């Protein structure tokens, strides 16, 4: 049954209110500097470092040294922009003796169009389960564009989530894929919502209560009930179309499994919600979910952002309220709320910490570092890997050029570069610990012999190698350039010696080109290249 027209208009108005608050937030940020109780991101970063230093001294942990400039640059470029830095930028950064150059770099990356592209990619992969891209390519691209536009204008995080949860689909291409990919099923939507936006695994309570778990079956089905009245009009056309439509109805309930007990909507860890004539169930959920008082929401966002930069979350499970790192998490979550859910400011704060800028080397790397006392190396994602190849040497598809001013990795239509899509699909690792290397031999073969790496490393085709043919460049210059391009660092003396020996064997210009190609191939296929350290 269709929702009455009045409800529909209410939804429109409610969305309007949420959107207006963006403007209010912008106004508030002006006032922020005069609010003496609100820390700047520099001050908050210092506070984070204080809390971490307290953990180190309590646990008698020795932190690693500060990262070298090149190590830091490659890391922060991959984390905030999803690509390795260009060789020219590396040279400039290493030569720069301004003590604030790291801050300047962070700000430059956060204001780059690549920031929004990278964030949109990351969220698209979070929202869509593995494999949905393969089935719904154009819809997934639409979602990416929808997200990207919002990250580009730094839309408040609470509004971003609210807009997605309240979407009606139709002409607004993209966000309805969240509903579509979850089959518009209340159980699946509840599971995804809890994981993405509350950071908790509620679905374990789907079938029955667990004696040791904090979540009950009532919690799970109470959350699912909020999605019981949203429908995709049940015609085949709607299912197949790009402009997937959603409607809110005033009927529909969820029942406990194998029973006819209707479960009314209830906020997780909170009160029951009563149906109201002037607001739909999902609007009620969105308002509760994104409210500043909802600690689950801000804690989940901060813990996830932290895990993106540090390789693991501040706490392993947000269900665990006794976790020792809770103070750090709670202070950051409160700060995120007080800064009006400002995502860019959150990334800036985390990237400014000394903890983020520690080296990944030193210590016993077979054990995970305790208390973030050393950076954890993480394999590049398939997108980071492909876009980094394209940064080294433009590949044959302009659509995926990470730095091209026309595209910045964004295509005009809903098609993506098929080379890139195919590469990503074939490289997507199984779910698991982000610090583990989870690929197989077929992926190694794809990298050793496949088209993407061949295009980057083939003499005569690779623009990077082409640039090294210049007559005034010595062999040592070339080796240095290749290391700066691939690893954002100078070769060690030992490495340079090995590579120069290879070049010295080349008797003809053709042999020399081949030798340079071989060196680049070895660097691109190295363990160091495959990881963000």
């Amino acid at each position, binding site marked *: 049954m269709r929702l009455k027209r009045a409800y529909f208009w209410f939804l429109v108005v409610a969305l309007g209110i949420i959107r207006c608050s963006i403007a209010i937030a912008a106004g508030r940020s002006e006032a922020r500097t005069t609010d003496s109780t609100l820390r700047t991101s520099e001050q908050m970063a210092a506070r984070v470092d204080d809390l971490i230093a307290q953990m180190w001294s309590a646990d008698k942990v020795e932190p690693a040294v500060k990262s070298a400039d090149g190590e830091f640059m490659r890391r922060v470029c991959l984390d905030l922009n999803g690509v390795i830095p260009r060789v020219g930028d590396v040279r400039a950064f290493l030569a720069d003796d301004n003590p604030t150059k790291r801050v300047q770099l962070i700000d430059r990356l956060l204001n780059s169009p690549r920031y929004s592209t990278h964030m949109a990619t990351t969220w698209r992969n979070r929202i869509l*389960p*593995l*494999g*949905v891209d*393969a*089935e*719904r390519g154009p819809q997934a691209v639409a979602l990416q564009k929808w997200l990207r536009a919002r990250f580009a204008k730094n839309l408040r995080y609470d509004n971003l989530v609210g807009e997605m949860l309240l979407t009606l689909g139709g002409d607004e291409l993209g966000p309805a894929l969240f509903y*579509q*990919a*979850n*089959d518009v*099923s209340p159980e699946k939507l509840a599971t995804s919502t809890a*994981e993405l936006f509350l950071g908790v*695994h509620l*679905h*374990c309570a789907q079938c029955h209560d667990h004696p040791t778990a904090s979540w009950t079956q009532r919690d799970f089905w109470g959350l699912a009930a909020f999605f019981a009245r949203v429908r995709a009009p049940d015609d085949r056309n709607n299912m197949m179309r790009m402009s997937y439509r959603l409607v809110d109805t005033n009927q529909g309930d969820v029942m406990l499994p194998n029973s006819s007990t209707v479960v009314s909507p209830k906020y997780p860890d909170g009160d029951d919600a009563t149906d109201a004539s002037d607001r739909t169930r999902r609007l009620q959920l969105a308002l509760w979910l994104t409210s500043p008082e909802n600690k689950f929401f801000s804690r989940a966002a901060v813990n996830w952002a932290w895990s993106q930069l540090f390789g693991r979350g501040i706490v*392993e499970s947000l269900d665990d309220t006794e976790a020792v790192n809770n103070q750090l998490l709670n202070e950051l979550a409160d700060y995120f709320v007080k800064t009006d859910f400002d995502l860019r400011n959150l990334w800036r704060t985390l990237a400014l910490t000394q903890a983020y800028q520690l080296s990944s080397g030193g210590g*016993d*790397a*077979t054990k995970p570092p305790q208390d973030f006392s050393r950076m954890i*190396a993480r*394999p590049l994602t398939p997108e980071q890997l492909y876009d980094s190849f394209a940064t080294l040497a433009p590949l044959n598809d302009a659509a995926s050029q990470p730095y091209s001013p026309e595209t910045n990795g964004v295509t005009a239509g809903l098609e993506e570069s098929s080379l890139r899509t195919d590469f990503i*699909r*074939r*490289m*997507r*690792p*199984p*779910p*698991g*610990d982000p*610090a*583990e*290397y989870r*690929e*197989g*031999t*077929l*992926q*190694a*073969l794809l990298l*050793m*012999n496949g*088209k993407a790496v061949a295009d980057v490393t*083939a003499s*005569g085709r690779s623009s990077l190698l082409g640039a090294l043919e210049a007559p005034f460049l010595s062999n040592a210059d070339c080796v240095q350039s290749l290391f700066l391009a691939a690893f954002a660092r100078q070769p*060690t003396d*030992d*490495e340079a010696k*090995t*590579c120069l020996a290879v070049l010295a064997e080349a008797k003809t210009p053709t042999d020399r080109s081949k030798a340079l190609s*071989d*060196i680049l*191939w*070895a660097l691109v*296929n*190295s*363990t160091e290249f*495959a*990881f963000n350290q």
Partner: protein
Amino acid sequence: MASHHGGIDRRELLRNFGLGLLGTSCASWLPSLAAEIAQDPRRRRHCILLWMSGGPSQTDLFDMKPGHANGGEFKEVATSVPGLRFSEHLPKLGKFGDQLAVVRSLTTKEGDHARGTHLVRTGHPPAGEVAYPSIACALAKELEYESVLPNYVTVAPPRDINPAAFEPGFLGARYAPAIVAGSGGPPAPGAAPMALAKPVDLKMADLELPPDVNADEAARRLALWNTLERKFLDGRHANAFETHNALYRKAADLMTPDVRKAFDLTTESDKLRSQYGNGVFGQGCLLARRLVERGVPFVEVALGDGLGWDTHQDNFRRVKKLSEELDAGWATLMGELQERDLLKDTTILWISEFGRTPQINGNAGRDHFPAAWSCVFAGGGIKGGQAYGKTSADGTTVEEKQVGIGDVLATLSTALGVPPDHENVTASNRPIKIAEGTPIHDILA
């Protein structure tokens, strides 16, 4: 805890751990890992999936209706097993009747190629929250053991019909198949593959060097790579780094002449090659035998380029040609596996996305039909020499022992020694069974 989150089971953990230790001093772990694998009763099981894209006509192959108006042009003839009768165009296969179990009572609900392909290959209709792996990826993962060869090799898969149905889904790309494509000149449009004068060659993707790199240069590259890798890894003892390095070394092993020889069909006699049929399917069956001999647990061979079996028009001429190709490849494969005593460890499933209408349409064709169709099991773990289930005299409904696709996939899994209720865990911690259905015990040995 981490393993639960990661969708990784115990054997996998052991294997990853083993790989992570290569090149370090903790070799004492390796013997116990080897012992673990040796005790695994599934070690030597193989599966060959014969995928018939387009939907073959059961009425013209394995469930004929002689004497009925729906019966069509072909004769039904005896096989080596009294009472079990197939089409006259499958004479060679008929000799292996005692190894074959025909399921004649399969019912599904998807009559569209893309949706049906997804349903049959994953056990689930498309577009759900979970990206279900194809049954081939899921079973290959369970049957995996240490070898330089890929775990799952597929010949000419018609992936465009529904990419997700051919992929490992939530299991991740490392469980994707190694794809082999035919080369040596595609047959002219409309030419029957059997008419090819020379057998096609088959090539595995990315196993060959890029065109501008020769073997010497590849060797130089690997030597340089190895030197630089050692310098980097020296003093860094991270398991993830070791895993990466070990995988590359394993991939480099794949590129050695020995392994490439496994894919090189030119070492077989021309006579044998043409006995299999010179097309991609026949040569794919020959490759399947070579790979099974070398321990590869899962091989898939597709017949019917694109939607070859989609005979809406001109059904009888086309099905006759396809039957001949099928008969040559499949029967020769059965014979060669039997000679090598490998058939008892190799389970074969012949299946498609759906069957075809028993009724003949105005274009002498048959249309999509998921309500009552057939699939065929053979070899290891299967009680051959029988037809299971029964359709009505006109072929339009299942009259006895109806089964669903979950039952068929659970039967395959059981025949291979993999419990169908074995669970893999998705990123959001949902346990997913290999197959949801009841194994057909009557056809299991």
